């Protein structure tokens, strides 16, 4: 078989360490984090709150600087945010003073895409996320799920080489979340988009990821990288929960993030 998708590293973390101070106490958010993400990967990063997974996303986005170590994009050190690495935020960061189309087209506007072309691409995205009829609405007039779709579409519109998503579906209800996850999977597969998806939900991580980066908390370190078998067109929630292989992966990742994994405790005994 010929590998069509060239395995080219797009994001790399090398001996990443991040510390900060809170109430006079030094907190190590990230320690010895080494990670390579290839172009076209859909990676999920999962861990308990406080494991530094959001910090990792911010460093990749260029919104945070590591205390030591290096973060690379396409082999070059990351210094500052850029349109090459779009980010979808946890706190619904769509602008309340822009309409649905105003928000989705914002990145294209910044990139200087001509109006006619911009409108056409925004209309396509509106169609894709099912917000027809809501084009001229403001975020305050939308539901949480709709707002989240706008946030994703806004970042997607410019087709950045990398999309970082920091718990983007945390604030929507469980049923809407399932729909959003399935839509995201379909979109990412169809466009071979590189996505780094941060979540604290093990199920979400397993459902979405090509592989899962399991992290421990305080200090945040990478415990294990768990691959998910290629489900192809069977990547629906119903098919996945019935697959014994997936079930095994879910319990494996659960063990890891809860700090009860067998091999890590045996390692400790040997040491």
């Amino acid at each position: 078989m010929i590998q069509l998708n060239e395995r080219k590293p797009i994001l790399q973390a090398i001996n990443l360490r991040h510390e900060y101070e809170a109430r006079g106490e030094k907190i190590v958010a990230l320690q010895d984090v080494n990670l390579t993400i290839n172009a076209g990967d859909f990676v999920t990063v999962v861990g308990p709150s406080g494991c530094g997974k959001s910090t990792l996303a911010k460093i990749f986005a260029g919104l945070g600087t590591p205390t030591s170590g290096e973060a690379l994009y396409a082999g070059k050190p990351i210094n500052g945010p850029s349109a090459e690495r779009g980010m979808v935020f946890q706190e619904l960061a769509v602008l309340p003073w822009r309409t649905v189309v105003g928000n989705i087209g914002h990145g294209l506007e910044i990139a200087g895409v001509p109006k006619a072309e911009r409108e056409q691409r925004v209309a396509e995205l509106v169609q894709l996320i099912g917000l027809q009829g809501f084009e001229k609405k403001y975020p305050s007039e939308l539901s949480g799920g709709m707002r989240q779709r706008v946030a994703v579409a806004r970042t997607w519109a410019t087709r950045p080489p990398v999309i970082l998503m920091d718990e983007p579906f945390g604030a929507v209800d469980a049923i809407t979340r399932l729909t959003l996850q399935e839509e995201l999977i379909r979109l990412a597969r169809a466009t071979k988009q590189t996505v780094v998806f941060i979540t604290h939900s093990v199920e979400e991580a397993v459902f979405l990821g090509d592989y899962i980066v399991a992290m421990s908390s305080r200090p945040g370190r990478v415990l294990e990288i768990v691959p998910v078998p290629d489900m192809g067109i069977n990547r629906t929630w119903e098919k996945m929960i019935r697959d014994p292989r997936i079930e095994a992966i879910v319990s494996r990742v659960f063990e890891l993030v809860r700090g009860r994994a067998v091999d890590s405790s045996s390692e400790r005994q040997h040491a």
Partner: protein
Amino acid sequence: MTTLRLTSSSIPALGIPVSVVAILLLALFWFALTNVFGVPEYVFPSMSSVAAALLEAALSGRLLDDTSISLLRLLLGAVIGIVTGIAFGFLVGLSRTARIAVEPLINAFSGIAGIAWIPLALAWFGTGLAMSTFVIWNGMFFVVFANTILGVSRVPPAYAQAIFTLGGDRREVLRSVIFPGALPDILTGVRVGLAFAWRSLIAAELMGSPMGLGQWVNEAATYQRTDRILAGCMTIAVLGVLLETLLVSWVAHRTVVRWGTVAVAEERKAL
């Protein structure tokens, strides 16, 4: 700071705005005071004599002359106050250090009543347009300045970070995030500032400026014409309401209210 209160509700059964009902009740009280209880004219003039004084002033052209000179003075001082208040508010609001450095000074200056500057302003500028402009600017500036700083510092950081990851630069963030994000507080500042500015103007006119509504009231006082005093006061009040509606409510309804970034009084449910 005070929150923005907008538009009135109405009595459903009659379809009459409650604010109109309040005005009618006040008029009824006034009528009763002079025409039923017989309070003498020199203590409190009756509605009809105030109306006559107003008509006389209108016919002689005095009302128009005084109103235009007052409005000219007000607009000149207010526009300079708003522009400088917003500009300096941005400069200080965007820097934490500057904010901390300047805060005690703002509090000190805004504590001084605008009128207290008038004797000094008379010495500096005489009775001309420069004097009234300074006094009005002084009434307007600090409150717009302080509210702009507050507004700028309250814009959620994720809004700006999201625009940076869309490829936006600092200018883009200022234009499309910080300014609209700070607008609710800026408008509150302008609203409160306008009231201060209006009062400062009348005080400046009472204390020396030739012509203007304040001077009209001042002259009426010398001749003990209570009807003219009250006619002047009512003109000042009506103009104040009109200005507020034109400069603040009109803008607010097309911006912050439309976006849902400010709560409208009628939509806020009673506890």
